[in-house]
């Protein structure tokens, strides 16, 4: 899942990026409103974390602008301003959630999970395809009752596949949602990671879940 953080305070975006990356998110940073607007409109993000006080275009204006540009990506606002009035104006500008500084990182994570759940119409933090399950909170992965051990990047890839189970995902789509902007597109990497997933998930099972569609991409699908 790819997240855009629009925040001018370098130290804050630094720890946000690090913390979210360690949770398996692909994270891009924008230091001001203009760049944030450009990135949000040119790339397909799964979620945007938006600071209210940013240079060039302020957070509220940017939020309204993105919504009028038909960007429906969930937006979580960050601000040092407290008070109901500020929250109301933030939510009315099109934000989906609102978090005041200083916040607990775990709370931000939980709110990000909640927004992603809502986006994909999930009711809990568990993705299930056939006998494969992924707990989004604990990152526990099970196939037919057996716990499997994955790296962060593998989990991120699996999560994307499972969230879009039954749909064909092109390599560029996978790159866009699992790797961040700093990753120079080399689609071969995807093949390598897919192979890792296949080994862990499908090797010991007669029923294969990961399918390759030549010239089109990959698809995760349970038996009909």
């Amino acid at each position, binding site marked *: 899942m790819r997240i855009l953080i629009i925040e001018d*305070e370098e*130290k*804050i975006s*630094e*720890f*946000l990026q*690090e*913390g979210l990356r*360690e949770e398996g998110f692909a994270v891009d940073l924008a230091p001001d409103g203009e760049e944030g607007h450009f990135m949000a409109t040119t790339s397909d993000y799964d979620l945007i974390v938006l600071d209210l006080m940013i*240079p*060039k275009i302020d957070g509220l204006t940017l939020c309204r602008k993105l919504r009028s540009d038909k960007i429906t990506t969930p937006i979580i606002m960050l601000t*040092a*301003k407290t008070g109901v009035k500020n929250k109301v104006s933030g939510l009315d500008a099109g934000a989906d959630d609102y978090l005041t*500084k*200083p*916040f*607990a*990182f*775990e709370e931000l994570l939980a709110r990000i999970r909640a927004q992603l759940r809502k986006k994909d119409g999930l009711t809990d933090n568990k993705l299930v395809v056939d006998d494969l399950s992924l707990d989004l909170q604990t990152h526990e992965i099970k196939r037919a009752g057996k716990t499997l051990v994955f790296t962060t990047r593998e989990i991120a890839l699996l999560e994307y596949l499972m969230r879009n189970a039954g749909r064909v995902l092109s390599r560029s789509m996978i790159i866009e949602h699992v790797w961040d902007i700093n990753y120079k597109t080399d689609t071969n990497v995807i093949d390598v990671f897919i192979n890792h997933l296949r080994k862990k998930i499908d090797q010991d099972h007669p029923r294969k879940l990961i399918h390759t569609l030549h010239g089109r991409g990959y698809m995760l699908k349970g038996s009909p």
Partner: protein
Amino acid sequence: MIFRSIRFKIISWNIALLTLAFLVCGILAYHSFKFNLYRNMDDLLMSRAVGVTESIDTYWETERQEALNDGVRTGAFSKINNINFVKIAQHWVENRSSDPQLLNMIIQIFDSYGKMIVSSAEVPDWSHSLSLPAETINPKSGRFENITLSLNSDKPIDVRTFTIPIREDNKVAYTVRLMTPMSDVDRQLSWLRMILFGFLPLIIFLIGIAGAFLARVSLHPIDQMTTDINRITSHNLHDRIDVPRSNDEIQRLAETFNSMLIRIDEHLIAQQKFIQDLSHEIKTPLTIIRGSLEVALKKERSAERYEALLKDTLEQVANITRIVESLLILARFENHDVALQVTLINLNELIRTALAEIQPLCDAKGILTEYIENDAVELEGDALQLRSALLNLLDNAVKYTPAGHTITVMVRQASGGAKIEIKDTGIGIDAASLPHIFERFYRAEHAGIKERGFGIGLSLVRSVIIAHEGHIDVTSRLNEGTTFSVSLPLKQT
């Protein structure tokens, strides 16, 4: 409650003073009235007594002359112990006592021994003789006396008496005593007493009621104001009480109260703004500390990573400390809480040392400095505060001036004061930001400039200059440079 109201105090003092004044006036009036009544009565008694003696003497003289003419030889011409005189006196009294001039009067005539010869009315036996020997009474002024008589078995009446002895050859020949009842005088005095002690208290009572009404009417706005003031709490300090257009003390009181409310309100708003600013500014370093610590603690890290984290955290703590300290200084300036340590300062010297202090920064960044001393200026001021203001301005100039450019500082004497100009050829400030740069926490956006202050420096500079009764102006053009002009008076009042 009513006893502790101004209304009650005004009315009770009013009534007390009024009563006292009426009492004093009443007593004085009563006594002077009484004195006058007595004097009138006494004058009347005296003139009637003189009339009576003159009339008797004339009568006696006429009778004596007739007797002489008739050839009757009366050996005794003296009125003393003269039976003829007794007869004449009796005769006179019987004939003349009905004279209208002697109405309401009793005439008594006593012989030289003080024994009553005749009385125009029946009087008790005890008054048939004089109470004092006639010789002891002054024949010119006579003697007044108040006595009580019982006439005709009526109830006793008070009478005023006047006794005057008539002398012949230095001996008392006879004595005339006139009596007149004092009932007239008593009636007038009791009428006066009734007015003074019955009618006046009634007037005082009515004045008291009128006063109470007036006090109620005139103090009503104060009660209204009390209600209004009670309505005002710390939550609606921006409310004002109604000001009555009465152009009196009450209007002034309401206006004074309102202006006090404005002062408190402004102070409170400033305080709230201070707290908001402070918490807002502190939230950023707090977010950094909290977030980076939480992320770091999520798993085991290398020793280098922990060290870097601790250093970062320390830096953020230092930031918080700096924000708090600067804000406190600023707040103290804004509350006029800073006493300037005024001394005579050599301004040229002060600028020179400030420039020397930032020289290393300029050298490191490759910025040139130029100092133009047009005049030697000495002025009164707080050297420490002015130095910190100058350093802030210079620091600012260094921050926003690229390498190879020049910062020019100029000092000269201007009308009634000193003028300092700090001019840089740096990136400048855009027109939209320019009016705000002295505001607390205002930070203009500078493309490509990484160094960012807290937005306190220029507010502090302005506070210092204003505390010195000077002023500061700024002109700037984007990409051409900024000039700060500071004017300072030579003397501090």
